[in-house]
C-alpha cells in the first residue's frame, strides 16, 4: 500500500440517555454538517460515503436509508453501509481510498438505544441455537468475563472501580460525554459488575472524514495518518475462548503495526471496566500510555458509534498536537469477540 490516508476531521453529538425528540436523521445531521464544515468540503465533494448502524436498536427495518437524508443522497452518491459499529465502516472507506477510487470519504455512525431494552436487544446477536434462547444480557456476559479475570488474579473489584473513576474523571474535560466527574460506583448489576463498571446507555452519533495524500494536507493542518488498521475475530462460543485474554485484539494490533514503536495514547472501546484490563494486557499498554483521555466508552457508549468515536478521539488528539502516535480500538460482539485496531500518527514536529 503506497497511498497515505488520514483522518482529517471528527465530530460527535452530545451523548444522552435519550434523544426521543429527534429522529435518527435529525440527531445525525448536525454532526455531518460539523465534520464537513471543519474541512470546508460539501457533500458533492465527498468521493465515498460509508455508515454503520443497527436496525435492532430502533426496532425498524432499513432505518439507515432514512439517515441517508442527512447526507444529501441526490444526485446519486457512492455509498455503502455496514450493520456494525462505524469503525468497520471506516475500515471499508479506508479500503476504498487505498484502491484509488476516491480521495475523500465521509464515515458516520449512530445509535439510538433509548427506544428499546438494550441489554435484551444485544442478546439477538448471540448464537441462535445454543445461547440466544437463554437471553443472557450484555451485562451478564461481561460479568462472566470479569469473574474469570478476578479468578485468574488479573484484577479485583477495587481495581475495576479505579478504572471507572479514572475514566469518568477524565471525561470531565469531554463536553460530549454522558457520565462525567464523580459517579457513584453503585450496587451490583450482575455480580461482580456494579453500575459503575458498566457503560451508560444512550443515544449518539459521530462522523469522520478521511482523505488521501496531499488532499489530507490541504484539508487539515496536522492529519492523523492511518499507519495501519486491522480487524480480527474469535470463536463465537464463549466457552471455547479464554475470556481473560484477547488474542484477536493482539493480532489486529500486530498487523496494524502497533507494536513496532510505542504509542503515547490509546483510545480503547472497553465498555466495561473489566474489558480495559483484558485490552491493556493484549495490546501491551504500559502505564506510560495515556488510556482513554476522552473518558472512553464508560463515559459515553452510543452503540454502533462508540468504536468510531475511539478512532475520532485518537485522531483529534493528533490534530491538536497532543499525540504523535495513537492507538484506537473498536470492538463488537460479547466479551470482546471482534476487535479492530488502528494506529494513527501525526507528521513529525
Amino acid at each position: 500500500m503506497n497511498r497515505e490516508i488520514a483522518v482529517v476531521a471528527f465530530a460527535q453529538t452530545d451523548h444522552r440517555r435519550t434523544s426521543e425528540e429527534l429522529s435518527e436523521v435529525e440527531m445525525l445531521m448536525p454532526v455531518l454538517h460539523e465534520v464537513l464544515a471543519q474541512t470546508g468540503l460539501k457533500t458533492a465533494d465527498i468521493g465515498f460515503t460509508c455508515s454503520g448502524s443497527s436496525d435492532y436498536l430502533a426496532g425498524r427495518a432499513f432505518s439507515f436509508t432514512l439517515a441517508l437524508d442527512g447526507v444529501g443522497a441526490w444526485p446519486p452518491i457512492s455509498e455503502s453501509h455496514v450493520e456494525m459499529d462505524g469503525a468497520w465502516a471506516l475500515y471499508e472507506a479506508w479500503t476504498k481510498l487505498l484502491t484509488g477510487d476516491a480521495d475523500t470519504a465521509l464515515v458516520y455512525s449512530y445509535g439510538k438505544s433509548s427506544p428499546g431494552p438494550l441489554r435484551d436487544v444485544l442478546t439477538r446477536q448471540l448464537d441462535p441455537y445454543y445461547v440466544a434462547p437463554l437471553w443472557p444480557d450484555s451485562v451478564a456476559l461481561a460479568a462472566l468475563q470479569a469473574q474469570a479475570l478476578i479468578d485468574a488474579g488479573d484484577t479485583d473489584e477495587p481495581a475495576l472501580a479505579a478504572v471507572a473513576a479514572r475514566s469518568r474523571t477524565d471525561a470531565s474535560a469531554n463536553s460530549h460525554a454522558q457520565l462525567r466527574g464523580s459517579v457513584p460506583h453503585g450496587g451490583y448489576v450482575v455480580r461482580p459488575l456494579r453500575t459503575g463498571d458498566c457503560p451508560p446507555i444512550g443515544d449518539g452519533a459521530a462522523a469522520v472524514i478521511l482523505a488521501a495524500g496531499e488532499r489530507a494536507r490541504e484539508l487539515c493542518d496536522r492529519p492523523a495518518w492511518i499507519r495501519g488498521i486491522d480487524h480480527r475475530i474469535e470463536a463465537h462460543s464463549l466457552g471455547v475462548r479464554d475470556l481473560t485474554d484477547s488474542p484477536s485484539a493482539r493480532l489486529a494490533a500486530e498487523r496494524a503495526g502497533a507494536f513496532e514503536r510505542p504509542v503515547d495514547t490509546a483510545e480503547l472501546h472497553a465498555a466495561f471496566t473489566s474489558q480495559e484490563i483484558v485490552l491493556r494486557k493484549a495490546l501491551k499498554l504500559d502505564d506510560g500510555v495515556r488510556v482513554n483521555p476522552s473518558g472512553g466508552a464508560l463515559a459515553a457508549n452510543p452503540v454502533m458509534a462508540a468504536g468510531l468515536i475511539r478512532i475520532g478521539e485518537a485522531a483529534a488528539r493528533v490534530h491538536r498536537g497532543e499525540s504523535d502516535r495513537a492507538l484506537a480500538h473498536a470492538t463488537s460482539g460479547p466479551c470482546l469477540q471482534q476487535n479492530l485496531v488502528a494506529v494513527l500518527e501525526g507528521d513529525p514536529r
Partner: protein
Amino acid sequence: MPEVLKAPLVVEFPFTRSVGPVQSAFLTGLRERVVLGVRTSDGRTLVPPVEYDPVTAEELRDLVEVAPTGTVTTWAWNHAPRRDQPLDTPFAWALVRLDGADTALLHALDAPGPDAVHTGMRVRVRWAGERTGAITDIACFEPYDDSPKDSGPDDGSSAEPAHHTGRFEDPITGIVAAARLDYTYSPGRAQTAYINALAERRNVGERCPSCRKVYVPPRGACPTCGVATLEQVEVGPSGTVTTFCIVNIKAKNLDIEVPYVYAHIALDGADLALHARIGGIPYDQVRMGLRVEPVWTQGSRFPDHYRPTGEPDADYDTYRELL
C-alpha cells in the same frame, strides 16, 4: 416545541431455523437426556458441539457422549432475572465444563445465593420436565456434591467420553427461536408535527431552505441537500394521482376488499408524493392525473383513503417532476 409523540412498538419474530447434523444430534440428545459433544482432530471435545472447528475450520462429525455433571469455569450472579431468562428467581449465569468436555457451556445455575457459588464448584444438569429438542431442555444446572469415589483427578475432566452415533428416533431438524422486543417508538420532531396536524385534518409539510422543495410527510431533512427542513407549509387537501398499483392480495387483519388501488398522490403544494389507498371509484378506472381528496372517518387521526374530487384530470406536465 410541542411534546413529541410516543407509542409502544412490539417486534416479535418466530425465527424458524434448520439445524445441521451435529446440532440436530446435540439438540435431539438433550430431548433424550443425553449430552453430546464433538471431537476435534487434536483430540479435544467441544460441548456444545459445532460442525466446524473454531480454530482450523475443519469439518467435525465425531460425536461423543459426555456426562451431565461438570465444573463451573466462571460465573456471574444475576439477582434480577429478566424476561425469558431460564429462571425467574435469582440465579448465577455459569460457564460449565461438563465431565469429558474441554470447552464450556453457558447456562443458568440455580443456587440459593452468590455465597453458594464459586469457580470450580461441581454442578449437574437439571432436566426440563417437558423437552422439545432445544437448549432450554436443560432447565438449568444445580449444585452437585460428588465427593470423590475413586482416586482419579477430582475435576473429572479426564473421564474418557464414549463414542456416540448421534442417531436417535425422530431426530429434530429445526428449532423455532421466538423473540420479542418491546420498544417505545418516537418519530421525532418533524413527523410528530405531521401526525399532530393530521389529527386536525390538516396536511403539513416542510420546506427545504436550500432547494425550496416541500416534503410531505416531512422527515426533518432534505434528502437532496442534506439540511434540516424547518419551515412548515400546509399542503393539500386535494392532490393528483401520479402513479398507482392494483392490489390483489388481501393483507392479514386488513378489512379492505380486493382488488383495490394504492397510489402515489402529490398533494397540492407538495414536491414529494405520499401514498394512500384510493376509494370511491372502481379500481379499473383509477388513472394517472386523477384529482383526489382525503376521506376522514369519524374519530380517525389520519385519512382512511382518498376519493375523486370530480375535477378534470391534471395535466401531465403539472406532476411529471413528481413521478
